[in-house]
Every structure is written in C-alpha cells, then in structure tokens.
C-alpha cells in the first residue's frame, strides 16, 4: 500500500510570524514535476472505453461441489449482484499518463483488469491500439525452480514479446536489474529485493505501447521507489501510454496528465489530476468525517473545507552543494527547497509542513505564515534547513496550504511534496534519534 494521502493535519494552531527565507538553487526537479504536462493529450486516442459495466455474482450460498449442485438444483439463483462498474466511458490519448483513483473497492482494479483482457465486461466496449502489457503485480508467473535466464524469457513472452525478442532483451533486463552475476541462479534463491528488481526490469524492458499498472510502486525500498519514479518519468517522456491505478494522490499529482476518480463503480470525475485529487479527498471526507486516532486526519471543524490553493512547481531536498538528492544520511540536515504556485489569490497563507514516516506518523512538523497577499499565479518559495534527527527509514514531506477567510472559515489543501529516505547504520529505536549524554559507569563499591 502506498502512503495514505487522505491524512490531513488537525486544527493545528497557526504560529504566526513573517517568514520569507529564500535560497537560490538549481532548477532540476525530483519528485513533483510538471514540466511536461502541457502538450500531452493531443495524440490520437489509444484507449477508448464506452459504457463499460461489470458486475460480480456473490453467491449467498456458494455451490462448490457437484453434490450441492445436484441436491439443491435451484440454489444457484441465490446470489447477490455486486455491481463493480457501471457505464464507464473515457478516452486515453497516446503518450498520456492516465491515473485511475478511487477508494478500496471502488472498482478501479476491476476496470484495469477489463482493459487488460482478464475480465470480460458485461456491457460496453473497450478498444485499444498497440501492444498492451498489464502489470497487476510484480513477479507474476515467476517460477522459483527456474533460473533468472529462463524466467526472463517466460515472463517476457507472458507480457507480449515474442520468444526471440524476449531472449534478445535478456541482457538489457539483467543490466537494468543489476543482476548479471546471478543469471543462472534459481529464482527461489533470490532475495525478495532481487526478485522485485528482476520483475520490474522485465516490465520496463517489455516495452509495451500501453502499460497498465496497478500500484506496483508499493513494493521495494526507497532507492527502488525512486527508480520506479525515474522509469515512469522516462516512459512518459518517451511517449508511452501508461494507465496507473493507485490511491496515492501524490503519485497522481506528480505523474499523471489526467486522472479519473471512480466511486462505487461510477465515474465521479475525469480531468485535471489536482481536481481529481480534490474529488478523491472529498469522497474520503464524506465517509470519514471524524478525525482518526493519531490525530492527523480530517478537519475536526465543519467550516474547514478542502480546496485547491496552490500546486508545487518544484519540491526537492538538496545536499550541501545545492544538488538535489533523494536520500539523506542520518544526522545531515534536510535542506528543503520548495516552490509553490498559488492557484488562487491567497491572503496571508499558512504553510504547515509535516515530515511523515513510513507508518504515516507525523514525526515532526512546523507552521509558517506568509504575511502577504499572494496573487494567483505568484510563486512562494519555502526553503531552508531542517534539523535531521530521523532514524533510518522512508519518509515523506507534506505541505498543507491554508488560507483563513475570516472567523473560523479555513480552506486547506494537502500536497505530498517529497519522498525521501534516511540512511545510516545507527540501530533503530523509536522514530527519532535524539542526542543524549547518558553513559553507563561503574558505581564505586560502598567503602565500609
């Protein structure tokens, strides 16, 4: 599972104070980048879905054996019709990175499986152009008893390559996975990390025109997640069409050209990823009005509404030399460099920055207010150093942009800015490592 992006700050009291620290740096971006969004979508339609519907029969009394079928011949009619999808129509253009988002059980994965020819729709038509490869899960079809070499070929054919093509891409796959030395090792002797790398390499090298991906990003360590992101960016640049099913809004906002929200099997929204994220948040809050246990959930105040206040133009961590980095060594300060573009006029906006760990716990956070009127389209830079007391692990930085519209009327919006890792060798106890001067010493024997 990816980070649950519906987590939102509670009614954190705004700490006021003018704040306009600025640092200059390079323009290269990691994580959130929107450089190529414009211009996509102009290509020809490569996926066309019209009125797709699918329902599953959930038997109330499951007839699984012949005896039951024979002894209760009419029992079979006792099922519940579960409508997974109804009347879904959309187009995806060549070169588009298209997101399908929705809550668990909304039907998004069913839709992907219909696109992938795994399920047959009850009604409606899907038409596609080009070679399609579905990646519902990494490592499907791996045979643990076979060597990597044999598995690469088998998997390549499984994902639509011819046998000759699959064989000729063996080297490329092994290089990408950095597993050249283990080509004749049986997969069962691979570590899970190696296996994931191999599976992902096959997916990348299968080089389908249309890739259908179901949250495969959810696996692997920080470096691997970064590699996935890089690959997705690269595929996107190469004009490949990618359909990604996810419920991580950060991924949607940072990668997708367009996104579609499915709710209870129906098309809720299709279009701009920010708006899609907004719809998604609204759906979540409609169902979970109260704050959950760890206190970082939905607004506890009815007058707090979700809206789009801005978007991240640039979000990155830098090293001492000002170069963007994906991972930070333990103890080395986090140098944050974020540029946010106001999507509307913001009167004295408040920026709440949260550092979350892998368990979605806000390890640390701070609030800054900009005592200015920010015009629509104007950019705000959030930059500076954060002391790094984090234990090794995987983290995310969120920023909540809030504007106060008079008494009690607050509008907030969450942005997942950065995913990063902290590496180091110190043993991991708890969620932060604080400085201490507690030392053990031998107690002198009481002289009697």
């Amino acid at each position, binding site marked *: 599972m990816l980070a649950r992006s519906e987590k939102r700050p509670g009614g954190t009291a705004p700490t006021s104070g003018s704040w306009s620290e600025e640092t200059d740096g390079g323009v290269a971006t990691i994580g959130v980048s929107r450089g190529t969004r414009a211009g996509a979508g102009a290509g020809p339609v490569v996926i066309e879905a019209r009125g797709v519907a699918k329902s599953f029969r959930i038997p109330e009394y499951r007839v699984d054996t012949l005896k039951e*079928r024979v002894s209760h011949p009419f029992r079979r009619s006792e099922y519940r019709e579960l409508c997974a999808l109804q009347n879904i129509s959309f187009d995806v253009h*060549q070169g588009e990175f298209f997101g399908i988002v929705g809550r668990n059980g909304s039907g998004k994965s069913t839709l992907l499986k219909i696109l992938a020819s795994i399920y047959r729709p009850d009604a409606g038509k*899907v038409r596609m152009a080009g070679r399609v490869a579905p990646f519902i899960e990494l490592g499907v079809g791996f045979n643990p008893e076979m060597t990597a070499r044999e598995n690469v070929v*088998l998997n390549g054919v499984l994902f639509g390559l011819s046998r000759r093509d699959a064989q000729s891409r063996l080297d490329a796959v092994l290089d990408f996975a950095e597993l050249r030395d283990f080509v004749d090792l049986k997969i069962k002797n691979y570590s899970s990390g190696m296996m994931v790398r191999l599976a992902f390499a096959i997916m990348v090298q299968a080089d389908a025109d249309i890739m259908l991906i179901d949250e495969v990003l959810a696996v692997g360590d920080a470096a691997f997640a970064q590699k996935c992101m890089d690959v997705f960016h690269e595929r996107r640049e190469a004009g490949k069409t990618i359909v990604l099913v996810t419920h991580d809004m950060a991924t949607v906002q940072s990668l997708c050209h367009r996104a579609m929200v499915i709710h209870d099997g129906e098309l809720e929204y299709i279009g701009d990823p920010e708006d899609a994220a907004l719809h998604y948040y609204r759906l979540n809050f409609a169902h979970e009005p109260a704050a959950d246990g760890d206190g970082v959930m939905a607004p506890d105040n009815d007058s707090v509404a979700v809206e789009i206040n801005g978007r991240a133009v640039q979000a990155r961590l830098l090293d001492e030399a000002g170069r963007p980095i994906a991972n930070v060594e333990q103890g080395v300060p986090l140098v944050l460099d974020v540029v946010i573009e106001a999507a509307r006029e913001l009167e004295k906006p408040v920026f709440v920055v949260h550092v979350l760990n892998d368990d979605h716990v806000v390890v640390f956070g701070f609030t800054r207010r900009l005592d200015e009127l920010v015009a629509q389209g104007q950019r705000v830079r959030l930059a500076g150093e954060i002391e790094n007391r984090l234990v090794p692990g995987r983290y995310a930085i969120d920023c909540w942009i809030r504007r106060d519209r008079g008494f009690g009327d607050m509008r907030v919006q969450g942005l997942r800015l950065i995913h990063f890792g902290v590496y180091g060798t110190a043993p991991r106890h708890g969620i932060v490592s604080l400085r201490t001067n507690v030392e053990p010493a031998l107690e002198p024997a009481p002289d009697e």
Partner: protein
Amino acid sequence: MSTVEGDLTLREVPGPSALGGGWKRSMELLYLLALTDFKKTYFNTALGYAWSLARPLMLFGVLVTVFTQIFHLGKVPHYPVLLLMNIVLFGFFQEATLIAVGSVVGQEAIVRKTQFPRLVIPLAVVLTALFNLVLNLVVVAIFIIASGVTPMWTWLLFPVVLALLIGITTAVAMIVSSLYPRFRDIAIMWTVFSTVLFYATPILYTVGNLVGHPTLRHIILLNPLAPIFELARKWIISPRAPSPAVAAGGYVQLLAPIAIYVGVCVLAVWIFNREAPRIAEEL
C-alpha cells in the same frame, strides 16, 4: 511526444478467452510452459528421467508376473510387450488428464493477473506428458524389437494411433481443467474414473479375451479408448489381431465409440469456450 510508431488503429479488446492474444503467442507460451514443467519434474531428482520410466516398468513387471504366471493370459501373442506398450500409452492419458484437473487453479496467479490464453494451460500439461511418452516409447520400441516382433510397414501408422490418443486426452484435459474451478469434486471423481477406465480399456487383455462375456464386451466397446488400443496392437505387435471393426463386430458397432469420441471433443471445445472468459472470476 508521438515518437511511437506503428499501427494506431483501435481494436476491440477481446477479453479473456481460450486463445486470446494470438495464435503465435499461444504456441510460444505453450512450449515454454511445457518445457518448464518437464524440467521441473526431473531436474531436481537424482535419477532424473529414469524415474519416469521406473513407474511404468514397475507396473509392467507386476502385471506381467500376475497375468502370465497366475492368470495365464499368456496365449495372447507377445503378451509382455503388448502389456508394456498399453501401459505406457494409457499412462500418458492418465498422467495428462490427472495433472490437468488442477492445472488452471494451479496457475491462478497467471490467470488472474496477466492476459493469458486459457487453453494453453491444459495443453501444456498434455504436451509435458507427451514429452514423457515419447521418451518412454523409445524404451518400448527397444523391448518390441528385442522380443522378436517382426518389423512391418504398419509401424509407420503409429502416429495415427498417437494422434487419436492425443485428441481424446486433450479433450478430457480441457473438460476437467475448466470445470475444476467451479466443481472441486472433479479431482476425486476423475481419479476414481480414470482407474475404472484403466480396467475398461483393453490393456491387460484384448477384446478377443471377452468372447464369453457379451455384456461386458458391449460396455467396453463403448469406450472410445478401446479401438485406439486395438489399432495399436494390430499395427505394431500382431498383424493378425482383429481390426477394431472386426473386434467390435462390424463397422456399425464401431460407430458408438467414434460418436462418443467426437462427442467428448465437441463437448470439450464447448465447455472450454464457455468457461474460459469466466475462469479468472471463479478462482
């Protein structure tokens, strides 16, 4: 952006089916899957392929002892080699169909998570068993020549026997593998039924041995496997053995097993086509 060349005509997505994704891809998957299974079966065992021979040879040893020393079926010409050939041929049918039962369920991940031509799964099982059969037949051939059967031109007709056997094996494999996800009884039922078939097929005996038992003979002659085994006997081992038609008592009587054979094949195609699109949901 538009750097991807190639055909951009929209084609209707076919949905899951028996041979979805094209004939060529299906063939390649079939070959790879069967090869994988074959290697998996023998590569980790100390004696490797020898084991696949050990089973029919042991069964052969026991049966040949029982039926020549105790029950005196020895008057059938070249009984031991006939028995060995029959056991190997039936072994193929039994192995392929029994493994096929659970094959689609066993490949659950592939069926539910990739676009996979369903038919390839049972076919791969049959193909794996066929690899075995071919290797076993080499041994059978050695035995046949060693036991002094005179070589004859009808040996060249053996592929016909093989084709008929592969046909019915494939049909049964398709039926049991596609029904198993919905009716788990198939596994037990088929284990029992295939054992019954072993005795209801002229393997240990010939149809000629049944002269004194007309009812039994009628039942056994309904078995579509019976004419196949009779053909094999006549063409390979004893040319003077009655042809299937003669053994059945006329061509008209032969129509029954032929009709059943064709019926099973048609049923297989119908059931498989009907179940294939739904298998991913039933698992």
